[in-house]
């Protein structure tokens, strides 16, 4: 991993001039404000002897600390469960089990009774020894375990030696919170009305704390090495949760620029907020279903708050990646059901597992391949693991009883593949019928169109698929024969290439001929101008990130469908992506000046 990028020589001292640190943009938003450093909690755990007469009192004192910690943890656990769901809350069940650990209790009691040492010191020694064993190895999983052990240690020490809440409760004014690390429980406790942004030295996009920050709408940059050492309380900071940058002690011009940019984003957000309850409909009445792409069950609230018509792409890989073992049908069912319930009557499209390629779950036997994107991935992988696939399909079917659920297969490139996958769904439906389990008998089963072969047999596929959703990222890579992870080919990643646009048009036409609907759920749909073009190509649905959704809606509402169709016809006659981009840009400058400028987030 690279260290922070510094705009000043590394010998610059903390607290001096401007300094830019970079990390991982983990939760979007731009914030300007004073820094509050949450120092790693240093508990002054003193050792003192316990007089024989006070032994029982000390044991009782320890028991009370555990009991108070348990109450805190249960409260946090239930709060997280209510705010983000049971899956995210599960880690606290394990934390609660640590409080109940028989060896821990035995060791502490023995330390007090036989060695006459105070509870605080015995307790800390015991947990530190375990944390130290996990420290020896440079392994991400082990570090996570250590963080969990230390989280529990801090919680109990707060009661054993005092020292308070590590400043979380002490945040009483606007603050950019900087910490070496922050436990998910502390993120959950941050006062939302004061906290402008969160910056941590450790963590990744999928760590528990990050998920909680995103869920609470707190802009966050994580993995910023050296952040806590580089700041002093009161330093001004500009945090960009989109780009993953933290500007410390910026000069006045930079602050002014950031404030202007934030004011523009806020003004725009205010305007866009007025659109939340309004439909994505063109001036001449063409209604487009504008849905959101989500990945975590906790993203649902965000999707609802920006006025999504539904979820057009629920990426279920979340359940399979970054974890130790296969998710059970039950666990998936609970998560899918809660999403379906919260969105009902709006539809939710669950895309079945798209593993393989760059998404490797080694416990399922996925391995690294020479040509992963042309390899064992998506539906190919799922059909080779029918039991795993079946469990997911059952979970989705069962969830369909609680809302408006649709199911979609990834990476279909052949009619037989679609038939095999659909047959599995019918088997599942038969099982559920036989066992009297409820599900939606009208559940739509659709597929993604992401391969050129699917485009060319789309007429056949459309007869057996309830809908199409174009996955434009993969369709672009496969159509243009360019690896989108190869940096040297980045300039060839052209979703506006006529070959891609013609593929989309053909897909839409085949869907229409069969009386089906067609949508687009790739990145390109999130660009307002491109979204207008897609509407002109005849797509019925667009699914975009929650972040892009309001601007896309504004663009659709500002144009006529007739002019979008004319635009689409015109660009389809052009010969290269550059020509399409040029035509699109000049059309946009004339018709949609508000959105024609480059995205404000770039």
């Amino acid at each position, binding site marked *: 991993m690279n260290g922070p990028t510094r705009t000043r020589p590394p010998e610059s001292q903390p607290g001096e001039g401007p300094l830019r640190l970079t990390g991982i943009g983990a939760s979007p938003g731009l914030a300007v404000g004073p820094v509050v450093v949450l120092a790693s909690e240093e508990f002054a755990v003193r050792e003192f002897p316990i007089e024989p007469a006070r032994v029982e009192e000390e044991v009782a004192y320890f028991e009370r600390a555990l009991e108070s910690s348990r109450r805190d943890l249960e409260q946090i656990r239930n709060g997280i469960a209510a705010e983000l769901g049971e899956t995210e809350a599960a880690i606290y069940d394990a934390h609660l089990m*640590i409080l109940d650990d028989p*060896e821990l209790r035995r060791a502490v009691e023995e330390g007090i009774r036989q060695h006459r040492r105070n509870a605080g010191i015995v307790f800390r020694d015991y947990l530190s020894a375990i944390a130290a*064993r996990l420290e020896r*190895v440079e392994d991400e999983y082990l570090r996570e375990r250590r963080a*969990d*052990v230390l989280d529990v240690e801090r919680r109990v020490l707060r009661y054993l030696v005092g020292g308070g809440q590590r400043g979380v409760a002490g945040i009483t004014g606007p603050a950019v919170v900087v910490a070496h690390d922050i436990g998910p429980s502390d993120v959950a406790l941050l006062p939302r009305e004061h906290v402008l942004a969160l910056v941590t030295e450790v963590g990744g996009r999928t760590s528990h704390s990050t998920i909680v920050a995103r869920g609470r709408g707190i802009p966050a940059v994580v993995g910023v090495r050296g952040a806590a050492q580089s700041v002093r309380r009161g330093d001004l900071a500009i945090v960009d949760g989109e780009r993953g940058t933290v500007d410390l002690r910026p000069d006045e011009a930079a602050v002014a620029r950031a404030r202007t940019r934030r004011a523009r984003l806020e003004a725009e957000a205010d305007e866009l907020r007025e659109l939340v309850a309004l439909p994505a409909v063109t001036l001449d009445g063409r209604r487009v279903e504008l849905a959101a792409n989500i990945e975590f069950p906790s993203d649902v609230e965000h999707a609802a708050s920006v006025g999504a018509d539904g979820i057009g792409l629920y990426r279920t890989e979340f359940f399979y990646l970054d974890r130790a073992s296969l998710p059970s049908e039950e666990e998936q069912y609970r998560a899918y059901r809660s999403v379906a319930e919260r969105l009902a009557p709006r539809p939710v499209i669950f895309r079945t597992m798209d593993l393989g390629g760059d998404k490797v779950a080694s416990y399922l036997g996925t391995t690294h391949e020479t040509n992963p994107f042309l390899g064992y991935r998506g539906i190919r992988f799922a059909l080779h693991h029918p039991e795993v696939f079946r469990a997911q399909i059952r979970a989705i079917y069962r969830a369909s009883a609680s809302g408006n659920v649709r199911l979609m297969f990834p990476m279909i490139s052949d009619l037989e593949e679609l038939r095999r996958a659909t047959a599995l769904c019918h088997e599942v439906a038969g099982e559920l019928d036989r066992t009297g389990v409820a599900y939606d008998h009208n559940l739509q089963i659709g597929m993604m169109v992401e391969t050129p072969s699917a485009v060319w047999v789309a007429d056949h596929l459309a007869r057996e698929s309830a809908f199409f959703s174009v996955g434009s990222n993969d369709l672009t890579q496969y159509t243009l024969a360019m690896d989108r992870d190869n940096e040297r080919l980045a300039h060839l990643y052209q979703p506006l290439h006529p070959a891609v646009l013609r593929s989309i048009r053909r897909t839409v036409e085949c869907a229409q001929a069969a009386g089906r609907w067609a949508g687009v759920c790739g990145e390109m749909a999130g660009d307002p101008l491109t979204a207008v073009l897609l509407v002109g190509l005849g797509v019925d649905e667009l699914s975009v990130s929650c972040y892009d959704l309001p601007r896309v809606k504004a663009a659709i509402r500002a144009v006529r469908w007739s002019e979008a169709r004319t635009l689409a016809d015109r660009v389809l006659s052009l010969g290269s992506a550059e020509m399409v981009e040029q035509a699109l840009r000049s059309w946009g400058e004339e018709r949609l000046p508000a959105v024609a400028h480059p995205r404000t987030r770039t």
Partner: protein
Amino acid sequence: MTQSEVVVVNESGLHVRTCGVFVREAGRFKAEVFVRHGDTEVNGKSILGLIGLAAENGAMLRIRADGPDEEDAVRALVKLVEGRFGNMP
């Protein structure tokens, strides 16, 4: 006493939540349960002990139980590890 060896097959090994599942399962039995990894043996009903084993994917564990239902305990726990801890997170 009954004992058996088992290899940790889930990707991230004995992490906090899998240890929790193991402890819960071990707690169903009257027998005392011990888990050895390398030179370290810990109480199988202690989540901290298991976490401290730092057992990764591929680690060989020796599970040993002592008590009236020791055979059932070892069988159930081996099955749990082999079955990736009941497919829980």
